[in-house]
């Protein structure tokens, strides 16, 4: 059942003439992990703000259509009611830190204090979320003394600790190193498996392809295409419209022109690419490449 239901949503920021979102229709099921992609300026952050209730409650402007989350409608609710359902991690973690707390531990408790969670439960939840997001060693540091990647983990943790029904993440790994990125995607996936609904804005195609259930491609404030990662990332519309696609897809597309990719489906992930290219190279198994593949180190999440 859809826990997020956007019907014909059009939104225009105050003092601008043209809408940032145009006739968006989007349903997300409970526990689904949806990735939103699109060029800069496509309306991705505005969509996040809309799901989180900042549009229209904070930014004002003109919203038409209906935004329904967990059975209530945003225009009929207060922001205070809304935050209990939806948590948003900002694109720039620096903008999200309260500025009112001296340590990461206290920062993570800030939201819980505001909704009146009992002290013991609050402590337990903060300890758990630090463990989950790999920041236990930062508990006593000032949130402002952290690197960009560390701040992003704190920003994510401060939302997860609220246990929202819907988690909205705006480029949560933009300042992280590649392996940190993979860890965070693992955490997000785990949250989705535990029933949290996730809407994630991200440019990193390889990780979306591997972890997300569905991809929504936005352009000029409209939904251009949606489907499984494979459907969206191998679509020629998406490539022609200036979206990032995986190197595996573009290499296979080129190889197909050269007669070196036989399958009619293009790959999005490393596994799909390895399988397809092995077939193209070696009609008679067992092949050297397949032996190599089986020997490659396991547990890398690929």
């Amino acid at each position, binding site marked *: 059942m859809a826990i997020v239901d956007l019907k014909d949503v059009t939104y225009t920021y105050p003092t601008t003439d043209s809408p940032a979102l145009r006739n968006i229709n989007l349903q997300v099921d409970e526990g689904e992990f949806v990735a939103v992609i*699109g*060029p*800069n*300026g496509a309306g991705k952050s505005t969509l996040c703000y809309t799901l989180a209730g900042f549009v229209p409650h904070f930014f004002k402007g003109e919203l038409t259509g209906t935004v329904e989350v967990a059975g209530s409608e945003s225009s009929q609710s207060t922001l205070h009611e809304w935050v209990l359902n939806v948590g948003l991690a900002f*694109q720039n973690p620096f903008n999200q830190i309260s500025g009112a707390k001296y340590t990461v531990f206290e920062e993570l408790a800030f939201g819980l204090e505001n909704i009146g969670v009992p002290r013991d439960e609050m402590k337990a939840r903060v300890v758990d979320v630090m463990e989950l997001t790999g920041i236990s060693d930062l508990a006593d540091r000032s949130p402002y003394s952290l*690197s*960009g*990647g*560390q701040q992003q983990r704190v920003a994510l943790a401060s939302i997860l600790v609220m246990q929202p029904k819907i988690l909205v993440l705006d*480029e949560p790994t*933009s*300042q*992280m*190193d*590649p*392996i*940190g990125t*993979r860890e965070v995607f693992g955490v997000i996936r785990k949250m989705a498996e535990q029933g949290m609904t996730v809407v994630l804005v991200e*440019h990193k195609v*390889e990780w979306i392809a591997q972890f997300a259930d569905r991809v929504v491609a936005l352009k000029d404030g409209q939904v251009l295409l949606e489907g499984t990662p494979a459907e969206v990332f191998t679509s020629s519309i998406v490539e022609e419209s*200036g*979206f*990032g*696609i*995986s*190197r*595996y897809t*573009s*290499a296979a597309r*080129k*190889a197909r022109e*050269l007669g*070196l990719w036989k399958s009619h489906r293009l790959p999005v992930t*490393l596994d799909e*690419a*390895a399988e397809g*290219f*092995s077939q*193209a*190279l070696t009609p008679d198994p067992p092949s*050297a*490449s397949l*032996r*190599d*593949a089986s020997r*490659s180190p396991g547990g890398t999440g*690929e």
Partner: protein
Amino acid sequence: MNIEIQDLYFKYPGGVEALRGISLTIEAGEQVAIIGQNGAGKTTLVKHVNGLLKPTSGMVRIGGWDTTEYSVAKLAPRVGYVFQNPDEQLFSKNVETEVAFGPRNLGFDSEQVQRLVKDALAMTRLSDKTQTNPYDLSATWRKMVALASVIAMDTPIVIFDEPTTGQDAMSISRVADVIKTLRERGKTIITITHDIDFCAENFERVIAMAQGRVLLDGKTNEVLAQEEILAATYVDPPQLTRLGRRLGFKQAVRNQEEFLAVLKDKNAS
């Protein structure tokens, strides 16, 4: 203009030892990417190149100048530095004034300033936005303004700190074009990046850092082939390098061209 770093150690006032014995030379006209996990010391290292930080011990020389003997202002004509976050360096009321600030400050005459600004704006495709306030532009274009404002200073050494963070595919290819143009002009370029595919496709030499030390330093293909050491720097090899390895390629490939070339060879044999 070359960069010589010998046995460089650096400790922040709080006591964190961010660099622990770095030695390397970057020749004039070389393009080098620095990769490694958050907190490895990448930004601390490049801040020694423009003199923002001075060694706790060891030596940094820029075109023969020992940075401890020259102020940041004196080093400015030699080293340009584009910050990770453009908002930390933009302050003017329009794009043209912003970009003109650097060269004017270095003492170029007004004709030269005009020429440098025009050139930098063309390179970053900002020519139609000269009168716009930088803060009315999207984050992507603000990044371009930050790039242009440093390019216009025409320094022999240019440093880019995370030029592709948060950028879409189109914008990343614009950054790649800028780096290519600067390479053709013989500039020495140092780029810090987490985007390993971008690194593989645009740089000939890669330095991988972890915990204040250099773990790997060499030709891009050679460095990217060292999967286990790279893992210690929290970096995965590029997508096509990993794919090549899975397919049993003997050499590490770093871009689509190299990948397809090996594929063709294997298919023919």
